[in-house]
């Protein structure tokens, strides 16, 4: 029999003295290393055949006032067992420089730019250190997540100086097409800058963070149990996913045991959220090919699901359902069985629609081979969720790192290898059926019992927890560090959109601009969740 492979022991045997200390917290191994060793170690974790770690999160923590230091944390998901592994390093005193890992691990690109904007820590050797969150009109030296930056500082909007900061391609017949921040439809603001020669897109430059509201700073003003209200409002379409991830992090800090009934109900609501968004997206994608019929039917079905949400919880977006320790709403059994009956009707309705969509040649013509995201590209950029699964990245937290009641439910994970718009539509359609099946299963096996667990411990300042949930878009990850008096010292929020936006820049290359809305909708990313 082959000996069991221990990633940490393996790394220790190779890097030995470079690793200062290994600790384990909540079952997650943390390697504390020197700053100059970050690049070789992370590169090894990313590239080694046995480890194959993808960067899932990269964040910084300002430890003032307690300690005069910054911490950098790198969270990797190891491909083989889907285990987590953290590499952490300290920047002591006035140290502001560290080595960039972006040239070797592309997924770190936006994270390092974000850390530079929010903390003023500079990743040396980063290929593109333009401002990301702070637009050009922000004053110099403003780093909102510094502990000595007041959360309610007043920043005045000023006319941005000079030209737009972007990557440009010059040459005869090369044109630039700026789009946004305010778009033609009812969508969120973002600026897209296309470079085209003739019809095909040569390059797309994204400028986001128009909607940056300072969510992570606002979290630091909340107590652990009150933060859920803010988590509810990070991205409206993922209300339940975000609040669930937040609640799980707090529960892990306070050592709360969530009762079984509450865990089942959480899965139920998460699937309802997945359902209304996926149905809406299938319609939206069809609408972007001007197929209004499918859009009308899908938005009608989506409305039915949202009315179901309203009927069950009193909120069309499932707001205020989650609370720390469990759920605040207990729908009666009759309502749940009615919901399942209604969902069966919706599924039948949707299946008929699928048949109509599947035989529409002009629709398939637009879908096929449009916006291809290759598996290697998706892996390099750590793409998650529906987009990743459509490109052959077989990852789904519901199966790989079960949360809520998914350890007792078996989830059939949809996937494809084509990576085009059609693949993303197919994955969504498969997930719609799977969600309805799961809701039926939850309704049949829903256990009785209390809805809320009570807390066991008061978290020490500096205690931390990580939490991840497979929302309808993909993996939502929260890092939560407790502060004084049950406050929050640091809350890092990562919506899957933050990871998937950079990938869209690569998926559009070679496509024509009229196909961009289609590709964008097939990714269906949040601007609010990305901008925070």
């Amino acid at each position, binding site marked *: 029999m082959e000996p069991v492979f221990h990633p940490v022991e393996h790394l220790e045997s190779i890097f030995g003295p470079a690793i200062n200390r290994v600790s384990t917290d909540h079952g997650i191994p943390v390697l504390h290393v020197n700053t100059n060793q970050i690049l070789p170690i992370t590169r090894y974790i990313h590239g080694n055949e046995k480890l194959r770690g993808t960067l899932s999160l990269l964040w910084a923590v300002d430890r003032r006032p307690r300690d005069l230091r910054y911490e950098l944390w790198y969270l990797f998901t190891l491909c083989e067992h889907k285990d987590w592994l953290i590499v952490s390093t300290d920047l002591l005193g006035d140290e502001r420089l560290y080595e960039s890992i972006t040239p070797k691990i592309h997924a770190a690109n936006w994270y390092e730019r974000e850390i530079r904007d929010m903390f003023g820590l500079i990743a040396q050797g980063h290929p593109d250190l333009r401002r990301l969150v702070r637009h050009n009109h922000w004053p110099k030296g403003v780093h909102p997540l510094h502990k000595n930056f007041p959360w309610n500082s007043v920043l005045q909007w000023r006319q941005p100086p000079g030209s737009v900061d972007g990557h440009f391609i010059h040459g005869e017949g090369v044109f630039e097409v700026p789009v946004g921040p*305010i778009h033609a439809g009812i969508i969120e603001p973002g600026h897209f800058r296309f470079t085209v020669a003739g019809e095909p897109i040569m390059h797309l430059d994204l400028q986001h963070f128009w909607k940056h509201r300072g969510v992570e700073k606002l979290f630091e003003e909340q107590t652990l149990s009150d933060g859920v209200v803010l988590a509810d409002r990070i991205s409206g379409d993922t209300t339940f996913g975000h609040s669930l991830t937040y609640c799980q992090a707090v529960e892990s800090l306070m050592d709360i045991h969530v009762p079984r009934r509450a865990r089942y109900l959480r899965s139920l609501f998460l699937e309802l959220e997945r359902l209304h968004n996926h149905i809406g997206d299938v319609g939206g994608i069809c609408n972007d090919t001007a197929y209004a019929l499918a859009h009308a039917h899908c*938005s009608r079905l989506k409305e039915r699901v949202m009315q179901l949400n309203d009927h069950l919880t009193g909120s069309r977006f499932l707001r205020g359902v989650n609370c720390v320790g469990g759920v605040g709403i207990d729908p009666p059994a009759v309502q749940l069985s009615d919901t399942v009956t209604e969902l069966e009707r919706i599924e039948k309705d949707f299946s008929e629609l699928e048949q109509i969509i599947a035989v529409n040649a002009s629709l398939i013509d637009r879908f096929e081979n449009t916006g291809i995201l290759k598996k290697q590209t998706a892996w390099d950029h750590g793409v998650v969720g529906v987009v990743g699964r459509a490109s052959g990245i077989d990852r789904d937290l519901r199966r790989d790192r079960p949360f809520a009641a998914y350890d007792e439910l078996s989830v059939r994970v949809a996937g494809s290898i084509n990576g085009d718009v059609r693949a993303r539509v197919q994955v969504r359609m498969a997930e719609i059926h799977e969600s309805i099946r799961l809701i039926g299963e939850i309704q049949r096996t829903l256990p009785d019992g209390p809805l809320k667990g009570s807390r066991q411990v008061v978290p020490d300042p500096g205690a931390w927890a990580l939490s991840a949930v497979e929302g309808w878009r993909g993996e939502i990850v929260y890092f939560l560090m407790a502060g004084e008096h049950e406050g929050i010292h640091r809350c890092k929020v990562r919506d899957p959109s933050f990871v998937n936006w950079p990938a869209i820049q690569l998926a559009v290359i070679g496509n024509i601009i009229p196909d961009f809305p289609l590709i964008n909708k097939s990714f269906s990313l949040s601007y609010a969740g990305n901008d925070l």
Partner: protein
Amino acid sequence: MFKILKKSFKTGIVTGQYPPAPSGQKFSVAPTAQKKAELFRRSLTIREVDTGSCNACEMEMNALANPVYDIERLGIHIAASPRHADALVVTGPVTVNMEGPLKDVFKTTPNPKLVIALGDCAINCGIFKGSYAVTGPVDQHIPVDVRIPGCPPRPAEIIEALTELRKGETTFTRWFRKISGEP
């Protein structure tokens, strides 16, 4: 083709199949706003501007256009450009990055125009109040005529508010009442 028709016949008309807006809270629209809206009684073209909302308000605005609410039946259209709009619907607290674009949009919208602040965030910044990245509610930057509260307001509530906005007497009905001798 047959399948499509069959599906449409089977589905029938779904418009209006939604629960009414919770009664009790009536939307009061200022008479000045009603007066301004006189011109747009029969046709109101809306441009939606998101200045930092969590996108729930956008989803409800999108829902207005679905077959269940179908606001086109009330003569309300969604325009693709502020230059075609009679009314701006603004959602979200105004972020420091969106303040400039919001003012630009207001400038490019032709007069006369209405500004509708949709959702709690647009009215008073909601939970994001005071943040360094938020520069204040919509009325701090552009004059607001109508406020529709809610987090987010339901589509039925938005419809009710828009109907309320376009109620009351117009110059024509006043004149007609005068010449017909009604009290």
